[in-house]
């Protein structure tokens, strides 16, 4: 089970906070802060696992994170999840963001937190991994976007953040899992 998914920037500003276990808001903020301090002091070239300890749950929980440019993506998971699998899942999530936002950058996450949530909801549901096939995720997101568009959206012309955009620049990370399945071979994929 995934207990929490936190995205914050290099200064600890939360960009996405998704807990799958109830914590009051102030505790959530505290966890984000503590997590930030934990990962901040770690070099980029040391391992991506941290024993969560006091934060959420007990010794069964681990923090698994990746650092992309200005953002940290942190997943707090228990021992039923594969560590390397979750690392790949983070990669899938970020790549999906990249596809949906067309060269995602921190500003996209800042101004479209809701959309990031919707994308995440197609990847993880209630703390369990829902879908790992990026094409499938993107297809569902796009279908929902079309649906939203057909309804006229929330406001007529959503202001898109266009300004000094700093791309996250996805690094080429060796994939541990061959996550992407070819949808052509999947019977029943809709």
């Amino acid at each position, binding site marked *: 089970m995934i207990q929490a998914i936190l995205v914050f920037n290099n200064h600890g500003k939360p960009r996405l906070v998704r807990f799958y276990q109830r914590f009051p808001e102030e505790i959530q903020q505290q966890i984000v802060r503590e997590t930030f301090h934990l990962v901040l002091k770690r070099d980029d070239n040391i391992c991506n696992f941290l024993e969560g300890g006091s934060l959420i749950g007990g010794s069964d929980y681990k923090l698994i994170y990746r650092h992309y440019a200005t953002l940290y993506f942190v997943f707090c998971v228990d021992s039923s999840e594969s560590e390397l699998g979750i690392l790949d899942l983070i990669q899938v999530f970020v790549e999906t963001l990249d596809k949906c936002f067309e060269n995602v950058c921190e500003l996209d996450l800042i101004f479209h937190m809701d959309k990031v949530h919707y994308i995440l909801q197609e990847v993880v549901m209630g703390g369990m991994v829902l879908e790992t096939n990026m094409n499938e995720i993107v297809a569902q997101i796009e279908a*929902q976007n079309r649906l939203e568009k057909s309804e006229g959206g929330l406001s007529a012309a959503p202001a898109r953040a266009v300004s000094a955009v700093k791309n996250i620049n996805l690094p080429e990370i060796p994939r541990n*899992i*061959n996550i992407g399945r070819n949808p052509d071979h999947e019977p029943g994929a809709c």
Partner: protein
Amino acid sequence: MALKMVKGSIDRMFDKNLQDLVRGIRNHKEDEAKYISQCIDEIKQELKQDSIAVKANAVCKLTYLQMLGYDISWAAFNIIEVMSASKFTFKRIGYLAASQCFHEGTDVIMLTTNQIRKDLSSPSQYDTGVALTGLSCFVTPDLARDLANDIMTLMSHTKPYIRKKAVLIMYKVFLKYPESLRPAFPRLKEKLEDPDPGVQSAAVNVICELARRNPKNYLSLAPLFFKLMTSSTNNWVLIKIIKLFGALTPLEPRLGKKLIEPLTNLIHSTSAMSLLYECVNTVIAVLISLSSGMPNHSASIQLCVQKLRILIEDSDQNLKYLGLLAMSKILRTHPKSVQAHKDLVLQCLDDKDESIRLRALDLLYGMVSKKNLVEIVKKLMSHVDKAEGTTYRDELLTKIIDICSQCNYQHITNFQWYISVLVELTRLEGTRHGHLIAAQMLDVAIRVKAIRKFAVSQMSALLDRAHLVASSTQRNGICEVLYAAAWICGEFSEHLQEPQQTLEAMLRPKVTTLPGHIQAVYVQNVVKLYAAILQQREQAAEPEAAQDVTQLMVERLPQFVQSADLEVQERASCILQLVKHIQKLQAKDVPVAEEVSALFAGELNPVAPKAQKKVPVPEGLDLDAWINEPPSDSESEDEKPKAIFHEEEQRHGKPRQPEADEEELARRREARKQEQANNPFYIKSSPSPQKRYQDLPGVEHIPVVQIDLSVPLKVPGMPVSDQYVKLEEERRHRQRLEKDRKKKKKKDKERKGKPRRRGSLHTESDEDIAPAQQVDIVTEEMPENALPSDEDDKDPNDPYRALDIDLDRPLADSEKLPVQKHRNADTSKSPEKEDVPVKERKIKKPKKKEKKHKEKEREKKKGKEEKVGEDLDFWLSTTPLSAVPPAPEEPGANAVIAAAQEEGEEARREEPGDEEEEDEDERDPEKKPSKHKKKKHKKEKEERSKDKKKPKKKKSASDGAAEPVENGALDEDPLPPMSSYCLLAENSYIKMTYDIQGSLQKDSQVTVSVVLENQSNSFLKNMELSVLDSLNTKLARPEGSSVHDGVPVPFQLPPGVSNEAQFVFTIRSIVTAQKLKGTLSFIAKDDEGSTHEKLDFQLHFSCTSYLVTTPCYSDAFAKLLESGDLSMSSIKVDGISMSFQNLLAKICFHHHFSVVERVDSCASMYSRSIQGHHVCLLVKKGDKSVSVDGKCSDAALLGSLLEELKATLAQC
């Protein structure tokens, strides 16, 4: 109206949207809080407007603010409003906000039930999807209960997108509403084979999550998962399954053996590191679960260790970390394989990454042996010196202590060395683990008698330079060691060389700066020292010197009397008075030493940590019973504060009671000794090492090296552990030489002896390092009759315990998921749908097996080669070990054998007799109905005929997944896991089959399970079962109904559907078989109209049906027979051609017996009736005949049983 709308949209133009809010916050960095509170005010205004679009926009902004830490629960109602919007855009916003801020305490959450139900059944898959996603985050027990049925329906939705979400959310539903697990489980299992890989993956995910918490309930799914594992190419699914197997193998060794090969193949073939890693992990789990004497597995271990080494050597820190993590698991069972890589581990200690260093430390823990302990600790000590940062240093410190103290100091051959290591550790400044060191010092000094002298000398040195240690006086700091030092010096003062000096050190004024609890120990032990010195002085006839000491005490003690710490103050005042009194006596030349020493006479023995818990509750003592009547509720409120004193008073009163005179005490002591001597669980403090107690905490006897007197050991001043290292090496060297010399001699004597395996000189193994002299560690005291096992580790608050649900018990009708029929159109699905889970509801539970059966099993297994992969038992049978879980999914699972694995195995082979019998079943009302022909194995045969209506399912079942079978006597579950459904009655509409089951828990009740199968094209409803009660046997009817009323069947039957209803009967006497007449009435409705129909039947309660398969060990069985309380009777049946094996299986199966023991063609069997009668059988097979001798606590019952048995045997 139109105007309003226009106004609304104009307003909206000025509203901030999410982007405006974010931008605004970024532009108000200096007064962010103020700006946000402004925005919240605006949002509140927006929420008051009628337009749902405005509200949705406001809620969207709130969600953002929630992320920043603002509580938005005040808007819960508005969030619900937005959730119920008809547009997807808004709905999604609402559900997102709800998922972020709703929780069990949100009171308006109950208002969402119907909205969610509506969304779940929405024609748009995205409405449904959004509702499922939201619900997964805020589902409450109430929501789970109300919506479980709707979600379960969605598991069979046409869209995989919905199916996978519905499957996943079921886990949350189970957690909140555990009752839903059993009804929903069959469908969940079905989803494991869903054509859509996403759905399949979700189902695997959920079941893995469930199984992780309560693995034994899911053992039966092993074959299905095995199939998935070998067929799936989705690494996510593979990882989950492989992880699951890791949790299952400890329960089923045979499974492990089965897994090794495919896992090894995966390890060799996969390129995905994550998969490789999980495979290695599970192989490790398998190897752990298998007993170690498997030589052919050393290859697997080597493979794992080798792959892990590759991981650890990888430049990727993640792989390095995981490699170490997995290595530590291998270490537990195969330390030797890992120890070969000590270099690698030590190297990792120097890694720049702290996580990796910590993992490496963990590994070290298991790598130590007697041989390398000293070396490893030395290395760690050097790291302690180097370590910057107290966290890591503290970690090192605890690890050193852990490593040395593990398994009762198993690896320490020289305790002097250890004490000096501990003393060296006291030099650490700023550690938080002073108390750990102190605890070790105390433990060693108390338990290793031989070391006391040395320990005392070291401790007195420590006390002497207490000022160094005590410079930092924070709690748990290093000053804690003074606590231990003071106590050891005081308690073992007889070993002190210079007691006077130590006494003075302990009375220094500086001591008063120590924490209170340490001072308290100082005060107490000062007196012990004082007593020792007095004794010394008086014996030496130096009254003056004795008085001097007293004077010193009188002078120095007042500094403690003034202490702010109550404990210190109290002890000091007491002792000061005592010493003053002594002073007076001394002035009169009265010898006092004797009496003062008497204060501290006797030894304090260590008590095992769990001793208290292990005291068994004496028979007849009910700890929960009230001693006095509890005060009535009304009073308790006001009296609460008083109660405290009340209790205290009682406690004071207690000791007065058991004042027995000396004689009585002596007598009791004698009796206790006697009892202890006879009690195998009592741990005697004999000095010999007793291996078999090794599992018990703190009770081993460990050889300890006595001080080697050939080397002068009095090390003045600070001890340095290195010195002891050298001494130890020398000692070992000498020992080795000695040994070699002896060996040589031996060799000379027997030159023709077998070639030696190892060169004795340099490959010294652990065992070779023998301590010079054996010294026993004082054992910790355990209570008499201490219970050998401790079950107290389970956390009663574990939320997953509620999910420890037996999945094989048949579903009771009350267990159906609640369906809200009124109000909601879409829940009125055809009953067919509701029935689906019922069709496959019974899952047999894996049973633990008695070891005894293993032998037999092994015999039987020989030569069994046919029918590859047909069922779980065969599936696992390539290995000699036993105990397999069954795994059935069909309702017929009920009809599976328990105590007789014989049945499980043999029946599956084509035994002519058995096969024929099975075929007869279809006609013979005494047998279970079955439509399956030969070559189908047992399980399938037992399925009820309705199964053929589900061809697809059937197929999956026979594909090897979940097959039934076997399994040993049930030791936990009193329900008889075997039964055969017999035909009860049949007409053109309906067919009734039934089975009677007893339960040991209800001594006069049996449950009759009736399967009703609709054989017509009509819809059957209003079914009602009425029975003519006899005096002895009565149908349990709902309260308030008369004896003539029928009991309604709680379901309806669409054409072709069958379902099971259960009826409870109360029985007064069970010694004879009985028959009851009854009628089933129902309304058959078809296109032409409805007719009222009836079907008469006769329920036959055979005596067998009152028996419950109960395991019995042979010793208990023998005792039972010896008791002589049983009456005896015999039968003999001739003309039997069936093999003895099958015969026994048949008896087990049809008559609910279990085999106790079997020798050649003779077997003892046991069963128990629901009223507690013991029934013992001795079955002997001669040539073509079988004789059965029975013994039973009731003669009449035995008679009836043997008659029934005879009837069965006659068919053989």
